[in-house]
């Protein structure tokens, strides 16, 4: 069995609510890319990646040229066992992890279909029936954020990511955390995320103003060292996102004592193969995992759900149903949330079926 056709589509995803983060970063309508790898036996494997603007060292319009560059290495691959071809691809083109991710997910989908197993089985076996979701709250006025939190709480959500830093005002950020904390009840988890947008001083002032509350902070500053300084000064637990993207950065974060929780994102690490290695190390390091991707629709959601469903007990913080944040739905048979939780798809491979009408005309076809 060999891959003999590569097809790539671009689809505009519009957020149900425009999403504001620190440093003026927003997410309104962004391009996602969908990849289909076909084999000479007629199997189709699907991948997706959606790098939101100004966030990763990645941009959506670079996808077609990067996929074209790697095509000679992808065509002819036998997709049973994904780590080996991905390692070869890493030697062919260094970096470009978001592009590796879309290829890797499609190869895993083929692997699952070839073996007739859902990916959670191939990723180590299912450890749970369903997973808790977190809800990310856009950085707007504190009152409005508390309203969004209450509405999400009423639907069963118990974990809340509070986006901070939209106005570079440490007091407004403290207010955001206080108001959301009040709104969601004592048993819920609340964490405030700056997406690297704060200085140590701003983050420490905010953190100390809420240090009496049960809150966690997420990636306040660009470097792990600065995040460690904030954790030490505030005494608040820390989740790392942008600063953890490979095994070495996970080790470094653990060494600095900032790895209470970590966001493992497919596009950041380079797909399920790299994420599985990162997961096993993170479990060893004793941190809790948020299993997700940067952005996207049903294919990245399905991949995240399989990954989350096979994460060992005690190591999963939450996962994310990105497809519920955007429209259109690319594969409407992907599971949706129920009472703030979500289960993985059941079919072989990713177990989701992209809708050709939503994909439209492909932008790239290589054989």
């Amino acid at each position, binding site marked *: 069995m060999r891959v003999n056709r590569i097809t790539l589509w671009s689809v505009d995803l519009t957020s149900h609510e425009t999403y504001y983060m620190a440093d003026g970063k927003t997410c309104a309508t962004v391009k996602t890319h969908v990849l289909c790898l076909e084999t000479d036996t007629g199997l189709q494997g699907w991948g997706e990646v959606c790098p939101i603007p*100004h966030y*990763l060292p990645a941009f959506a319009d670079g996808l077609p040229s990067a996929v074209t560059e790697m095509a000679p290495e992808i065509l002819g691959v036998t997709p049973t066992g994904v780590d080996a071809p991905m390692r070869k691809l890493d030697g062919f083109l260094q970096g470009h992890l978001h592009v590796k991710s879309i290829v890797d997910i499609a190869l895993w989908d083929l692997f699952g279909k070839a073996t007739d197993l859902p990916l959670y089985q191939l990723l180590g076996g299912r450890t749970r029936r369903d997973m808790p979701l977190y809800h990310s709250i856009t950085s707007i006025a504190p009152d409005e954020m508390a309203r969004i939190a209450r509405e999400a709480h009423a639907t069963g959500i118990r974990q809340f990511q509070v986006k901070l830093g939209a106005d570079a005002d440490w007091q407004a950020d403290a207010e955001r955390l206080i108001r959301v904390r009040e709104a969601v009840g004592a048993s819920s988890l609340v964490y405030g995320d700056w997406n690297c947008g704060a200085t140590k001083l701003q983050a420490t002032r905010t953190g100390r103003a809420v240090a009496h509350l049960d809150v966690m902070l997420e990636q306040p500053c660009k470097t792990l060292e600065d995040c460690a300084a904030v954790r030490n000064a505030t005494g608040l637990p820390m989740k790392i996102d942008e600063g953890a993207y490979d095994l*070495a950065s996970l080790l470094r974060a653990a060494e600095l004592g900032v790895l209470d929780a970590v966001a493992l994102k497919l596009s950041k690490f380079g797909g399920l193969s790299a994420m599985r290695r990162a997961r096993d190390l993170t479990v060893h390091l004793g941190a809790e995992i948020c299993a997700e991707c940067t952005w996207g629709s049903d294919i990245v959601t399905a991949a995240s759900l399989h990954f989350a469903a096979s994460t060992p007990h005690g190591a999963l913080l939450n996962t994310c149903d990105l497809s519920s944040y955007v429209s259109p739905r690319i594969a409407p048979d992907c599971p949706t949330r129920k009472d703030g939780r979500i289960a993985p798809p059941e079919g072989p491979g990713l177990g989701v079926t992209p809708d050709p009408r939503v994909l439209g005309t492909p932008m790239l076809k290589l054989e």
Partner: protein
Amino acid sequence: MAPFVLGLDPRRVLDVERAMDLALPGHLYAKSPIDMACWDIAGQAAGMPIADLMGGGSRTPRPIASSIGAKTVEETRAVIDRYRQRGYVAHSVKIGGDVARDITRIRDVEDIRRDGEIVLYDVNRGWTRQQALRVMSATEALNVMFEQPCETLDDIAAISGKHAAPVSVDESLVTLQDAARIARDGLAEMFGIKLNRVGGLTKAARMRDIALAHGIDMFVMATGGTVLADTEALHLAATIPDPNCHAVWACQEMITIDIAGGRGPRNKDGHLHLPEELGLGVHPDEQVLGDPVAVYT
């Protein structure tokens, strides 16, 4: 990045740098030529060579490092001889991959090394930690320098207390945070600053200052390219005090096309001389460049 850069004043290189960094994280190799073009304009507008605009350029010619990609002892000698005939006094000898062969080649090159010659043994990430320590221990008495012995800074840190050789970090020096870590933790005695890898002159100048503040010497080079890329690196090299700048590179000598018709800094007795023309000091021949692949307005 074009929509974020168009409309800015190119003489305000920090504004351009920030706009690019906000538009798109990473992609330093794509930011580097934009930064370079802005410095070229800024120099022409100010009536100075880039090196002088950056604070002052030394006119001491900079030695060009050769690039010796041979495999056997005999081939290595032959390639070094060819470079010597063109005046080269600095050599980057590529090694790595086989411990016994690496030791033999280093011993032989040291045998034929002349007084005043600068030799750097460049591993290009090729050794595992054990391979690095075995070659470094076997050649300790020869007092030689190595570049990028292992894959990562973690690897280089892990072996740093166990050998006596000075080390230059090249591939692992990408961001200012890398430079700060190398300096603070004492991971290297030399920086190999590659302008395309670190994102251009603006970012490279900060690395230069970290190096000087910590007693770290430098090699400054392009990752590849024409006389334009060599000249950009030469301007940064000229802003480094003479004793701290060991060599530059002339990639122009390895390629078959000349986009500047013999103009700009060229090999003169194994050295490059800073041009006195304004800005970069060398302009490409647009006819040789042919049709542009893209124009943004």
